[in-house]
């Protein structure tokens, strides 16, 4: 079930909300939480019920291992360590089997001229998210940083529908106390109002902005080999904005939906395209993933405590892993490598004590991110290179309608022809790109409005406008990009 669908907005969400609080009103706390877990699993099964046993068994397995790690707190260290290793390997094996089997087989066949048949497994929805979430739980249980949670709260932590499919990747320490808190069992209009507001903003970001740019990005990457200069830039920038508004829109909706149930999810975005360097970017983009990679990969590898060379290696390893997490493909790995490389260069630059003007720092950072997304989005290596070729060596073709007035441009090697024909663009495409860029670079983000939420006519008007406009665009429903990861 998509957040941006009639069935979610008009049936599932209100139905779940009212039943949950009705049960709480009747003082059936366990029943209410049980219902929320059931509703979340129903939400998950809506796509494909075949995946339900996977998430259930993963949840049960990790709960047992996590609790055992807790119980073994005072036992011999080797047992605890072995149990944790077993738990992590089992989680990674599950993820690896579904997500990376065909990738490994393909590369094995290529390297050794083999003919091992591909498995063609469908990727169970959200597996990357709930696996990482539970690995963190196991590690913290090993470190004795978890309390002994009851199964119902643990099940809610894993399955709670707002964050189940595409995050934010929540941490047990920030979720469990909220599920256990009695204060959160009361209907709170403050949270409901803020939740509805932020949900409507997220919906607008996804349906109106991200889906608008999706057309240009999809067409551009599908016809990568023929893109001219303006088309190639429109393609890459469209994807850059599409991905941001799609994923941050989803996160806003998740935060909003969770707030209705008095649960505060962590923010995942903080105007990432305003970043002045790549480290700054990763503090603003997919914050909960960055946090996971920092706490459970980078720091355990040694972080920056073992000298510069080791730090650079750790950064590279962490970001290549981040790339692989997003998908089984060399383009994702290369994207991770590029970001790792950029972080290494940035750290080296900082160590030298060098600086540069903010505007230049922003320009370099944004363009690097934009170019790196090309590898992230491209289905094949070749497609990425073709889009980049268009961006740097493509012919400059502007509308033939301007030929008479702007004939002088011919001398600058600018040709006249159809305007953005391969991406189905029109005279508004670049205007919308500029307008969106302006919003992204200069306006306050939705987290600001959430944290400073005070009901007002202005915000009510904004919400009404967002909801009405998105309702008129629901016939163009599309999935969220991060559902694929």
């Amino acid at each position, binding site marked *: 079930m998509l957040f941006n669908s009639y069935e979610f907005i008009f049936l599932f969400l209100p139905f779940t909300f009212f039943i949950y609080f009705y049960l709480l009103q009747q003082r059936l706390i366990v029943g209410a939480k049980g219902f929320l877990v059931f509703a979340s699993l129903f939400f998950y099964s809506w796509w494909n019920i075949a995946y339900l046993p996977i998430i259930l068994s993963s949840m049960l397995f990790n709960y047992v291992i996590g609790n055992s790690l807790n119980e073994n707190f005072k036992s011999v260290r080797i047992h605890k360590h072995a149990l944790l290793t077993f738990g992590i390997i089992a989680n990674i094996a599950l993820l690896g089997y579904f997500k990376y089997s065909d990738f490994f087989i393909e590369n094995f066949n290529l390297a050794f001229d083999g003919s091992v048949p591909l498995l063609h497994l469908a990727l169970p929805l959200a597996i990357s998210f709930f696996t990482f979430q539970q690995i963190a739980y196991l590690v913290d249980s090993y470190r004795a940083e978890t309390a002994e949670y009851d199964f119902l709260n643990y099940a809610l932590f894993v399955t709670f529908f707002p964050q189940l499919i595409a995050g934010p990747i929540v941490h047990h320490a920030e979720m469990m106390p909220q599920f256990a808190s009695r204060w959160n069992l009361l209907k709170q209009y403050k949270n409901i109002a803020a939740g509805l507001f932020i949900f409507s903003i997220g919906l607008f970001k996804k349906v109106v902005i991200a889906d608008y740019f999706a057309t240009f990005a999809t067409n551009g990457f599908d016809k990568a080999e023929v893109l001219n200069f303006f088309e190639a830039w429109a393609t890459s920038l469209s994807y850059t904005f599409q991905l941001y508004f799609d994923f941050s829109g989803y996160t806003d909706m998740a935060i909003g939906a969770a707030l209705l149930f008095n649960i505060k999810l962590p923010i995942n975005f903080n105007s990432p395209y305003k970043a002045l360097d790549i480290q700054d970017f990763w503090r603003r983009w997919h914050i909960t993933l960055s946090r996971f990679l920092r706490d459970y990969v980078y720091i355990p590898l040694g972080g920056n405590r073992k000298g510069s060379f080791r730090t650079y290696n750790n950064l590279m390893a962490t970001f290549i892993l981040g790339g692989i997490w997003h998908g089984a493909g060399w383009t994702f790995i290369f994207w991770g490598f590029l970001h790792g490389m950029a972080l290494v260069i940035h750290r080296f630059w900082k160590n030298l004590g060098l600086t540069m003007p903010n505007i230049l720092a922003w320009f370099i950072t944004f363009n690097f991110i934009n170019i790196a997304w090309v590898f992230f989005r491209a289905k094949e290596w070749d497609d990425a290179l073709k889009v980049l070729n268009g961006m740097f060596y493509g012919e400059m073709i502007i509308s033939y309608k301007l030929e008479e007035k702007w004939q002088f441009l011919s001398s600058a090697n600018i040709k006249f022809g159809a305007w953005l024909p391969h991406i189905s663009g029109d005279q508004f495409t670049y205007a919308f790109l500029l307008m969106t860029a302006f919003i992204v670079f200069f306006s306050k983000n939705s987290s600001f409005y959430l944290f400073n939420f005070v009901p007002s006519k202005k915000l009510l008007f904004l919400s009404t406008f967002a909801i*009405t406009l998105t309702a*008129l665009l629901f016939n163009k429903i599309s999935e969220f990009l991060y559902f694929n990861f």
Partner: protein
Amino acid sequence: MSYKKFVTLFFILPFLLIGTIFSLNIIIDPFSITNYNLLDIHYKLARDDRTEKVERIRKIKQIDNLILGSSRSQHIDPKILTEYFGGYSYNFGVGGGSSADALGILLYLESQKKLPQNILLTLDFSTFLGDTLHPSFYKLPELNFLDKNIQPTSQIAKFLSIDAVRASFKTLKAHLKQTIPNSYFNEEGFMVSRKAKTVDQKTISKQSHNYVNNIYNNGDFNVSQARLENVKSIVELCKKHKINLAVTLTPVYAYQYALIEKNPSFKLKLAKFKTDLAAISPFYDAMIDNQYVKDIDNFEDSVHSNERYGHLYLAAIYKNTYPDLIKYHQSTTLMPF
């Protein structure tokens, strides 16, 4: 404002606004979805021709002759087919309409047991340049045979869409001002133009260059095998139901075709496409219909022929030389332009 008041108004205001828009679209009904015409509106100005035509086809009890194609065939008057064959004729020419749209609507008609006796399948060469289909194809369950799981909410979505709002306002404005639009679809799906569009030699030449360079990519494309398969399915369906099928390639202005021929690899690719098409069905190749495609007065632009040519086109296919002309032309070459 209190939080409770905000929550209450959050539900009331969008509900009222969406309800008003929904009611407005129901009353004006720009796609003619309902059977009511409360305001007695004569001209519906919908932009989404697929939705409008699918709705019309859903309502027609029997279609005897059907024209299938893209915007390039919207100026073929189906009434001429009625003159030739009798019965009721309809033009299902839709923007960017490919063989997938044609197959989709035929499968729908088959399911409704409303298949026609005569079909004119006009194939627009540009719809074979790649597998991508028009976005509207996917949202209409009556067309989208590729995904039968399409959301059944589409009827509501048709009234709750930006396209519907835009069309409603346009329609209402024209209705209140009692103006007759310059062009509109009549009951038979024919694009009626009050004032025939004309094009001058300079513009049509520019358009031709633009098509060849940018739309056809100077011949750098792969012909869609999926769309050819769709043609094959249409031919088989017609055989199965003993439907009289005529297949044609839609005309382009001769200058554009000459530009294609100047490019050897493009010419070869086009010839290969025609050979592949001929292996599926004999067809009338209006692209090299020398007697007509060289006359600028037959075109609105370099790829859209006008009503006048529509008449000539049908006559060429059905009246004068039919069935002799319905054959694959071994030579794809146009007379020197």
